[in-house]
């Protein structure tokens, strides 16, 4: 089934350098004032991940080839020469990897396809660097769209040979919450011992210091928005609590490192946002560690004694809040961050002695540079630039913005502006995220926003109500409000950008994917004069179609979610859908859809297209035959993005609406099926 090729040649593309940090930063200082080629902006990083071995002798990296295959290289630290490569043929690719010890790497392989984006597990392998042998230690084959539960997921390490392995039964997928099985896996022999079955569906487990399972956290079979907690007492599961997430949940995370009576909980039952607590396992007494009033915490940072020393959140920008500003670990981190102004720094991997660390440094203009930090000599050196053809200084900047919605609610958004134009009276694209519930945008590099801004447009992303991260009510209260206040928030973002002098109110388009596609088309239905054009990508255009078709509708939990989020009244759902109201649309529309889409079912596209045609409306379509819920392969992404920019150029850019569309053909292009309907001008 699997064939391994040794491909040292491919490794030549890994331009690993050993220069001080300053050299790399200086190198990106030279930049041009003209836009970049589209192919440059959408190019993908050649290196995905970089991890140092526990003994500091090797680096392991995953790299992406031009045809999208993920391969793994192991490099000798001293010479930077590739000493081993893992390249799989056919649809297999390298997924995650981790160093087990100085001589062994654990590697998961995944099925790669345009539909699954490598999400299906194809087994867990161990690579012996000394013998160069690789062997499979867990089968777990399967593939599934949108991420399923097949295969096994390696959990915490138990000892020098064993890991916890959580396994979902074969055939389970998004549409079905299965019970999980917990195994103890010997990664040298492949022997797996089943330890227990989860007491609830899709459960994760909590272990104590003696590696005993103490808690399981799962969901109800018929409710996505639920949490079920069990405690293990005397070898039996005892139900601790079942929660509806809109009301909040108390979720055990882990045990205290030193105090055997304390367990860390995440809890939002008595507040809007998530707080972290130490809970006494005997008395149930709770001690609040920290809670931010307006945003959920990403993380509480603990020291070696398990004292909370800082918290991280992203109300707008990524924010680190020291709780103990003079703590040596806080001071150490602040010094590290100071070396990279206006960038985010994360430690990706460390040597076993904790002295050398691989850092990933990223920002709104850089997907991530890799650095090596040696705490012994105190120096940071640049290791690797995953996209050496692109300089951060040439890419557009993104800043967080806050504005008030019409009802006074404060909203957070992210505004990306062109590098080569002043940020005044720009044509604007509103780009609502998908989801919509529980999903949100963050500050950071976004390929789509960068591509549009590079083409001369301001891009505004809004964390409209219903988005995640800003508390229970912000997330759940707006179920059944699709097309209502959730839609108004986007328009209020447009008005804010125009009021701030950034956007030209007469040149605004709305574009989004999935729910974003819903919002785009609802935008031109609800406020037909606000937008000069709309682009729907793998969009939902009819809530009644969504209620009946697609993978979400095929499970009890999915049906409940659809009832909760969309409503149970077909007439009300129709009232908040765009397809039944195409007669209200004035702006030209561009529909892009994956023909295999099972999330926003292909039928959404077919019926919207038919309705637009029946109205003799001006519209364009582009289909991606082998795509599901969005194109994955670079050639399709390139053509889709080019077509969108071409469409925008003709409606809010420098060209005329009647200009002929561009070809958008590139070497190696797939020539996706494209249609243009001139219709009657409105």
């Amino acid at each position, binding site marked *: 089934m699997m064939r391994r090729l040794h491909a040292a040649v491919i490794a030549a593309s890994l331009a690993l350098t050993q220069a001080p940090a300053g050299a790399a930063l200086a190198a990106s200082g030279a930049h041009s004032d003209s836009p970049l080629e589209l192919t440059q902006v959408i190019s993908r990083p050649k290196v995905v991940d970089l991890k140092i071995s526990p*003994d*500091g002798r090797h680096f392991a990296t995953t790299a992406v080839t031009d045809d999208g295959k993920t391969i793994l290289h192991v490099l000798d630290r001293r010479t930077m020469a590739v000493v081993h490569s893992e390249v799989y043929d056919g649809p297999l690719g390298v997924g995650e990897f981790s160093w087990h010890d100085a001589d062994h790497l654990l590697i998961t392989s995944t099925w790669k396809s345009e539909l699954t984006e490598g999400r299906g597990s194809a087994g867990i392998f161990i690579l012996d660097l000394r013998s160069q042998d690789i062997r499979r230690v867990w089968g777990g084959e399967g593939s599934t769209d949108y991420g399923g539960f097949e295969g096994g997921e390696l959990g915490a390490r138990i000892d020098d040979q064993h890991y916890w392995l959580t396994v979902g039964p074969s055939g389970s997928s998004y549409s079905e919450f299965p019970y999980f099985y917990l195994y103890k896996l010997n990664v040298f022999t492949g022997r797996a011992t089943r330890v227990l079955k989860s007491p609830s569906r899709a459960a994760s487990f909590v272990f104590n210091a003696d590696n005993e399972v103490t808690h399981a956290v799962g969901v109800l079979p018929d409710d996505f928005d639920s949490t079920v907690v069990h405690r293990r007492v005397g070898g039996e599961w005892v139900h601790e609590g079942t929660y509806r997430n809109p009301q909040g949940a108390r979720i055990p995370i882990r045990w205290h490192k030193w105090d055997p009576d304390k367990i860390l909980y995440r809890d939002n039952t008595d507040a809007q946002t998530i707080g972290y607590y130490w809970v006494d396992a005997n008395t149930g007494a709770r001690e609040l560690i920290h809670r931010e009033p307006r945003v959920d915490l990403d993380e509480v940072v603990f020291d070696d004694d398990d004292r909370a020393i800082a918290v991280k959140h992203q109300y707008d920008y990524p924010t680190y809040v020291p709780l103990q500003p003079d703590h040596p670990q806080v001071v150490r981190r602040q010094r590290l961050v100071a070396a990279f102004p206006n960038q985010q720094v994360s430690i990706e991997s460390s*040597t*076993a*002695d904790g*002295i050398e660390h691989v850092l990933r440094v990223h920002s709104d203009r850089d997907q991530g540079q890799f650095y090596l930090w040696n705490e012994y*000599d*105190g120096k940071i*050196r640049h290791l690797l630039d995953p996209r050496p053809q692109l300089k951060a200084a040439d890419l557009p900047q993104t800043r967080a913005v806050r504005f008030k919605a019409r009802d006074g609610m404060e909203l957070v958004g992210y505004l990306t502006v062109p590098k080569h134009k002043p940020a005044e009276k720009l044509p604007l694209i509103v780009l609502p995220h998908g989801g919509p519930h529980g999903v949100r945008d963050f500050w950071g590099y976004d390929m789509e926003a960068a591509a549009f801004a590079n083409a001369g447009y301001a891009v505004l992303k809004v964390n409209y109500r219903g988005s995640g991260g800003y508390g229970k009510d912000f997330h759940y209260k707006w179920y059944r409000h699709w097309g209502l206040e959730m839609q108004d928030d986007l328009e209020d973002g447009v008005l804010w950008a125009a009021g701030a002098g950034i956007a030209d109110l007469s040149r605004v388009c709305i574009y989004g994917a999935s729910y974003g596609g819903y919002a785009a088309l609802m935008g031109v239905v609800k406020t037909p004069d606000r937008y000069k054009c709309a682009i729907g990508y793998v969009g939902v255009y009819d809530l009644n179609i969504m209620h009946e078709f697609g993978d979400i509708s095929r499970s009890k939990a999915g049906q409940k979610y659809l009832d909760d989020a969309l409503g149970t009244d077909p007439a009300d759902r129709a009232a908040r859908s765009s397809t039944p109201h195409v007669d209200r649309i004035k702006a030209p529309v561009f529909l892009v859809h994956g023909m295999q889409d099972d999330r926003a079912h292909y039928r959404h596209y077919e019926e919207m297209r038919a309705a637009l045609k029946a109205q003799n409306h001006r519209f364009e379509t582009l289909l991606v035959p082998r795509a599901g819920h969005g194109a994955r392969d670079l050639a399709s992404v390139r053509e889709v993005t080019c077509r969108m920019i071409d469409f925008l150029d003709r409606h809010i850019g420098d060209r005329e609406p009647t200009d002929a569309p561009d070809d958008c053909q590139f070497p190696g292009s797939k020539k996706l099926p494209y249609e243009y309907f001139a219709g009657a001008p409105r």
Partner: protein
Amino acid sequence: MRALVLALTALVAAVPAGAHALADFVRPDCPGADAPHSAEERCIRDVRKQLQQSNFDALQKTGLMFRYMARPELDQHPEAKAAIEKRTEGSFTVRFDVAPDGTVYNVREVDVTAGIEPLAKMWADTIRQWTFVKTGQAVADVEHRRIYLYPRQDDARRRDSPQAGL
């Protein structure tokens, strides 16, 4: 008299560490067997950390920058491995010089306490492999100090975790 002192000093430096009378190890003042295990373990962790920080500070004062920092390979030092398995406690300092080309030379084991010599030798061998980025001038007497210390309570689980690293 001064010449004699210098000669004695030279003679001492030339004698292998094993030929000296070795100092007894003075155990840091950590809670003992009657204290909760975690207290002793955390104290030991802090002692090691302080020593590590002093190593960091010493090197950072020199301005040296690692080109490659080797770690001990226990399999190539069976006596050191045995000392770790026996949970031999002790401490030592490895002192070394760095040439302008970044190579390490004149590696000495000093203040080696009784029983810990194989570990001192292993670390000296390891530090000989360290390389630094070229410097303007040679750097002398860089110190790397180490301590091997174990919880006194009988804990088989932790006994299985030797201090192979730094």
